[in-house]
């Protein structure tokens, strides 16, 4: 690995456009993918990695079309199997900076096992899971992240299988870097993508992605202007976790359970997230928080150093 770990600022280096291909993106107008493409190419422009060392890989799905729109090396592989291709490419050429783009069906239905094993092996690969809680490309069937009760083309009576929480699963799989960002916040995406790149090892980033066509508004509470303050929480390292319009709600621990207390100052049992904690237990609990009961946690859940796949075995 020869990638620099000191990251340049935005604005320095090549322009974002240099990382865009000439192909016109074929997503529905308003699809969250556009924002991801923007943030990702903006990140590429800031990395200081020469374009030829970047590889953008994907499976199959709307979201997996992304590599066609970048000017890096790219591989649009098979539904669910991109993690396997990514590992092979990375092991064969550790100098490459490998970015893996996947959808919720791709990464968690057909590809769930490859995702799991990618994450536990800790190769230096960055995986973005663009989670729109639906199968977009095949026109609207339930995915493993579709919420209970959702009526889709394949669940005319509503989804009955409890959804997977991708961040919790990634943590359980032992991922060394785990984050969650909404597609509405390109600044947060860029920041987290940069941190993912800086992390030595596997990085898993769930992007809450809006599919305007088949599941519009899935993240309305979390990303809506009016609701987001109450229903999301930005993870911060080292300080007690708080949220709310007035920043006066605190996450506290009650016999191992997370509860919310309202208070002007941090209560004594206010929880502090240490992304480098020896085990991901607390991070997993935070990952499970779901509006409207608890706020959706955004940002970096975990960031620990561990031996990286290629190095471990060399």
């Amino acid at each position, binding site marked *: 690995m020869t990638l620099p770990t000191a990251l340049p600022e935005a604005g320095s280096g090549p322009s974002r456009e240099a990382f865009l291909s000439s192909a016109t993106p074929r997503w529905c107008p308003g699809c969250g993918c556009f924002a991801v493409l923007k943030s990702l190419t903006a990140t590429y422009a800031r990395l200081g990695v020469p374009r030829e060392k970047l590889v953008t890989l994907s499976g199959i799905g709307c979201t997996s079309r992304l590599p066609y729109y970048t000017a890096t090396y*790219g591989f649009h592989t098979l539904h669910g199997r991109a993690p396997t291709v990514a590992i092979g490419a990375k092991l064969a050429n550790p100098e490459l900076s490998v970015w893996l783009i996947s959808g919720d069906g791709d990464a968690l239905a057909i590809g769930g096992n490859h995702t799991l094993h990618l994450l536990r092996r800790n190769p230096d690969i960055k995986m973005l899971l663009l989670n729109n809680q639906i199968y977009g490309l095949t026109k609207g069937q339930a995915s493993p992240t579709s919420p209970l009760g959702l009526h889709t083309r394949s669940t005319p009576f509503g989804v009955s299988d409890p959804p997977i929480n991708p961040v919790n699963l990634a943590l359980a799989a032992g991922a060394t870097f785990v984050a969650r960002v909404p597609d509405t916040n390109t600044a947060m995406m860029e920041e987290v993508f940069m941190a993912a790149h800086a992390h030595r090892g596997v990085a898993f980033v769930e992007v809450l992605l809006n599919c305007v066509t088949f599941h519009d508004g899935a993240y309305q509470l979390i990303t809506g202007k009016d609701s987001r303050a109450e229903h999301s929480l930005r993870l911060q390292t080292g300080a007690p976790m708080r949220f709310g319009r007035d920043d006066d709600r605190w996450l506290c621990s009650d016999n191992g359970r997370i509860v919310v207390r309202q208070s002007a100052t941090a209560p004594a049992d206010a929880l502090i997230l240490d992304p480098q904690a020896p085990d991901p237990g607390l991070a997993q609990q935070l990952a499970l928080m779901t509006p409207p009961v608890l706020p959706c946690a955004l940002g970096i859940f975990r960031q620990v150093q561990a031996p990286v796949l290629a190095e471990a075995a060399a």
Partner: protein
Amino acid sequence: MNQAPTAAFTLDPDRLDVQLLDEITVKFAGDSGDGIQLAGQKFAQLASAAGESVRTLPDFPAEIRSPIGTLGGVSGFQVRTGVGEVHTAGDAIDLLVAMNPAALRANRDGLRANAMVIVNETAFTSANLGKAGYTVNPLEDGSLRGLRVFPVQIGKLTRTALKGLPLSTREIDRSKNFFALGLICWLFPHPKDEIDTWIGQRFAASPELAHANQRAFHAGWNYGETAEFFVSPLRIGAGERMREAGLYRFITGNAALARGLVLAAQRAELQLFLGGYPITPATEVMQELGRLCTPAVRMFQAEDEIAAIGSAVGAAFAGALGATSTSGPGLSLMGEFLDLAVIAELPLVVIDVQRAGPSTGIPTRSEQADLLQALHGRHGESPLPVLAAASPKDCFDTVVAAARIALRYMTPVIVLSDLSLASGAEVWREPECAELPPLPVQRAVPGSEFRPYRRDPETLARAWAIPGTPGLEHVIGGLEKAGESGAVCYEPENHEQMVHLRARKIAGIVRDIPPLQVEGDRDAKLLLVGWGSTWGPIREATTWLRREGLPVASVHLRHLNPLPADLGPCLRRAGTVVVIENNTGQLWQHLRAHYLLDLQRLNKVQGNAFKVAEIVDHVHSLLETV
């Protein structure tokens, strides 16, 4: 059936000097804990070191663990050694070492008439006889008539020899394979002192064990020398024992596949990347590569076969020679990725070490029934080259040939081996890397007109545009593409052109296939055709039949797709063609479709190889009716 037609072993009881033989088939058999494999392997190595031609074949119990002493628990190791042509592990056993009643019973039917049988009499207790299913002791009821049975108290004598050593009885009993080895080594004879040294080295970690095994070995040797009933030692006659200079070693088919991949990649100056997942009988290919691990050789144990081939595809994309090894059930999972490699045009070697199917089938038995799957087991029009190895050491040459095609034509290639080749072994001289013909790789070069799928006009292969190279950035994938730019393209005519282009590219590999080697007279009336592991028996049968003066020839196919250009004329020349396979006629079907010829077939689907005699008999009966 005839007695096996190769130079049969006959012991002349009247001669007391050393007896010269052309060849002999020896089998060690016992319980799976009896150290049979080790004794057999050592014996084979000694024969080979003496310059003999050797072919070995182990057989393992099919079950995880059958109860000790039962038929299911018998493990065997067969060694055929000779001066002449030794291309099979032998139709029938000339000399059997049976460590218990089950080992005798399991191999009874495999014995040649008049064969020597050394039995460990100590194990012939009524309990053991019962476990083996004998109601009467076969040593006593005359049922072994026609055999030369030598009962030896191997167990008892070993205990006596090792008495006083600081070992438990169980440990002492584990040395009895060395007693047997000693006895057999005296019989041939093989150099005692070298074996002694080898035992010392082999058990260096535990000097007590080394010492015990050495003692047992000497006890066995001395027993041979002093016991009265062995008439005389044997010796394999001095035939053409000449070999090229070089490093020789015993190699199994699986090890040869691993070595071949390594050397091919090295010759092409590429990294080798093998993604694998354990499966009998292919596991050793990945394990062997795991041991050879260097920066240029990488083995990755994946979570399943899909991930195994997926990682190999990724490595090929990134500029390595990608490979994977599996058996039938794994190949059934790889179709989708093979298709991707076909359309993306990536160099990949996929090894299928076949076993008896369908489904889980009989994982510890051999078969050749994955040919049609290799040819057709993918959706869409998805042509790819298929090669097959003919013998353990031919696994090396075949996989190198496959790598050459993969790299020259930018295509996945399937290499078929099978269980009998995988675990069978023969002597092989490992070539230096530089001895292999060059394996050039066509790399794309940056330039204003770079197009990822620009093609070589002769081979129709694209040049490899490897990530990391500035100026060659491009995206590949599984969607249909325009033939040069690689851009996604849904045009009807383009699709048809691409389907034909992919087919022509693979068909064009025929130009790299060397002319067929006909064994025997090119104009012989009867032609035997085989592929894969049937080579050994077919070749020996051909020799035998020609010695009989019969008008028989044979050809063996390494290339199953595309078929060699001269195969059609060759088949048409013969009056009768018999396609010989360990399946129900898959090559036969493939050849019928290609050449519209009414070929005959000889098939055996019993999980084991043809006997030479089976082929000879079949030809005899054919020539009678013709």
